[in-house]
């Protein structure tokens, strides 16, 4: 079930109604758990079994880890959890990719191998809930948290529908304490939650799907070699689309959770106002970045190793980050590109970072612009259907293709102007909100202004033609 469907609005109304009935807290949690399974099963019922496997596996293993005093046993139990969870992820998400890679590798040695299409269906949200359950077991193993004493609370942590299929990736220590005391949203929480839901839907339905996706698709999904201008226009549109799509989903998730009385962590904090890739990744998909930092980068040695090893670890972590986004060489390359940017930035900062010139506003603005331009350049790897198409787009953006022509078919002057205008506004708003928050801005607005703004957003959402574009991050 997607947030941008009428069905979800009806579903939410029912769940909110039940959640606010004078029922025992345990009954209301059970309602949320069942609702979460229904939410997931609306996509493909049999795949809920995978969530149950993941839930049960880590419930029992984390409990056993906690009870065990033997380091060896604890490590073995953790390995079981890693093999179980990552094995499921590897099979369902990377099975086809690994098979293709093997076939390509074999062909290098003249071995022609033509396996049958494995026909593996990617279970929606598997990357998200796998990381969530893994973090629980890893935290218990590292003795950062005690295992939950309530299976209901733990199952709800794994399955909580607002963030089940596309994050934010929640940690047990953030969620489980919220299950202990009865939760019911206060009127202020309900109002703010619904406001975030409306804003998230506006970002997804109107900005991402309504205005930016058509421009991006016309350029990326065509076979034609784009002009320099069109390549940048398409990539800029996708930079905006992927932000509004995913940040929009996160806002919806946070808003829906808030309506139920739960607080989820922030996932985006004005990432396009960043100066440098390090800051960008502290502001973009924060819950994934911190997960990779805590459980992968630090496990590889973090900053305790030599400088060269640190840079290698950064590169490796970001490549895994790319691969997490999708089972294709495009995502591997995209992750490696971002890792390279982080390494280059750290090296340059070490060499010339102490110079005062970097603190000048104009220079920081230029660096911010360069960061966004490089990010936009890199999204060609993310969005293109394959590496060949990504290469075509990137060489066009570098002016290396001599294609000429006007706007691509299906994109009017208005479409292009609207896409550029939306991206400019997006940058302006993010720069303005860089050291602030939506909540603080909203708090300063009179109630009637906020109401008019929300009314405008709701009207715009209704006035967009319906599409069946799923959220981009559902595929991850």
């Amino acid at each position, binding site marked *: *079930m997607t947030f941008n*469907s*009428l*069905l979800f609005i*009806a579903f939410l109304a029912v769940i909110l109604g039940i959640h606010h009935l004078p029922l025992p807290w345990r009954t209301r949690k059970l309602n949320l758990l069942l609702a979460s399974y229904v939410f997931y099963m*609306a*996509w*493909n019922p049999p795949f809920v079994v995978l969530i149950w496997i993941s839930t049960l596996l880590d419930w029992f293993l984390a409990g056993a880890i906690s009870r065990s005093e033997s380091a060896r046993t604890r490590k073995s139990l953790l390995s079981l959890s890693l093999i179980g969870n990552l094995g499921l992820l590897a099979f369902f998400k990377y099975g086809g990719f690994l098979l293709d890679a093997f076939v390509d590798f074999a062909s290098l040695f003249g071995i022609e191998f033509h396996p049958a299409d494995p026909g593996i269906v990617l279970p929606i949200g598997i990357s998200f809930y796998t990381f969530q359950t893994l973090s629980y077991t890893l935290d218990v193993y590292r003795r950062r948290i005690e295992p939950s004493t309530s299976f209901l609370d733990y199952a709800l942590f794994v399955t909580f529908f607002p963030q089940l299929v596309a994050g934010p990736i929640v940690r047990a220590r953030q969620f489980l304490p919220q299950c202990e005391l009865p939760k019911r949203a206060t009127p202020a929480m*309900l*109002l703010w939650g*619904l*406001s975030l839901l*409306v804003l998230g839907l506006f970002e997804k339905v*109107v900005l991402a799907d*309504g*205005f930016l996706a*058509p421009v991006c698709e016309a350029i990326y999904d065509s076979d034609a070699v784009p002009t320099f201008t069109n390549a940048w226009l398409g990539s800029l549109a996708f930079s905006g689309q992927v932000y509004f799509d995913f940040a929009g989903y996160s806002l919806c998730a946070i808003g829906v959770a808030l309506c139920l009385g739960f607080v989820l962590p922030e996932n985006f904090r004005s990432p396009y106002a960043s100066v440098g890739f390090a800051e960008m990744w502290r502001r973009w998909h924060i819950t994934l970045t911190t997960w990779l930092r805590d459980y992968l980068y630090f496990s590889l040695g973090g900053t305790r190793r030599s400088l060269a090893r640190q840079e290698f670890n950064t590169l490796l972590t970001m490549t895994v980050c790319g691969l997490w986004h999708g089972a294709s060489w495009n995502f591997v390359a995209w992750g490696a590109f971002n890792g390279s940017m982080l390494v280059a930035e750290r090296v340059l900062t070490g060499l010339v970072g102490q110079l005062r010139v970097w603190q000048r506003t104009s220079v920081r603005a230029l660096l911010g612009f360069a960061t966004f331009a490089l990010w936009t350049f890199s999204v060609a790897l993310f969005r293109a259907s394959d590496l060949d198409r990504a290469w075509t787009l990137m060489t066009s953006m570098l002016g290396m293709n001599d294609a000429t022509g006007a706007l691509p078919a299906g994109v*009017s*002057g*208005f*479409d292009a*102007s*609207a896409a550029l205008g939306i991206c400019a506004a997006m940058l302006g708003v993010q720069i303005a909100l860089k050291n602030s928050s939506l909540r603080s801005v909203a708090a300063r607005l009179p*109630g*009637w202004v*906020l*109401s*008019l*703004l*929300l*009314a*405008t957003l*709701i*009207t*715009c959402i*209704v*006035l*967009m*033609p*319906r599409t*069946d574009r799923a959220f981009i991050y559902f595929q991850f």
Partner: protein
Amino acid sequence: MALAIAVAVATLAGLEQFWRARGHRPTVIDDEALWCEQRERVDSRPTIALVGASRILLATSLERIRHRYPDYEPVQLAIGAKHSLAVLRDLASDDDFRGIAVVSLTAQAFEPRFWDDQEDWVQACRAPWRLEQRVARRLRTGLEERLVVMAPRVSLREVGRGVFGSGELPSPWWIHRSADRSGSIDYALWKPAPAGYRPVRRFYYARTVSSESAWLAASAPVEQWIDQIVNRGGRVALVRLPTAGDQWKRDETHYPRARYWDAFAARTVATTFHFSDDPRLAAFELPDGSHIGAGDIPAFTDALFDGLEARGLFANRSNPRPGPLRVEFRE
């Protein structure tokens, strides 16, 4: 939030009135999910499945068919702007289908490169067709049937394109669609296709014409699909609906009826019906050269099915295929 919702509802109500006053009316957005709803209605019950593209989609009244044949359930499976053989192939592979397939097509549709034109919709329906999609589609259809503001024609993007492009608000759209996927054209609102469209079509034809022998040889699988349906008690009618003016001239130039259509008709077990054999069908006005107007739909439906009845589509048949032609074909 209550104030915001009230203001939004009031604004949308105002817009609804505004667009209605300008002649817009609600229309259902056709998509794979709506098609799947109709495809699911094709089962072992007596069904008349209408297959084809926009010509049959915008020219037949399901109500009229239901009235003529109360024992059959008519289902609109035509998909606009795409050649129709993928849907015929899909019906052929469906053992439940024992009804009547009325397939609107041109000789060009037999070119194998066009067989998969409608396959993406067929596949979308074969993939797990989820409860979520069904309910969401029903909810959407309910709103789209009733509200102009749900129509793509008056979406923010279209309004922006109109205002900033031509300096005008979008005019009412001339094609209307219903929840059962039937459609109609209001030629009072029609605007001819923009310049540049026709040369593209000429180029399109020039690239795709096979010699008649190659064309006939390549159409063998189509014959097999028809056989599959007929052998389990179903029937198939291949109809060539009217075209006029340049459209008809181009069709005849590239696929002369006598060498293509008639050649296939001579050897198929399907009932075939070419509009030029029927003065009633040929007499309908086609302002765009390809589609009739909304007012003619009931009369056109009657003319089409009268013609099919006259050609024995609904008659009892024990051995529909003429023997010698079958032998010749198998050789």
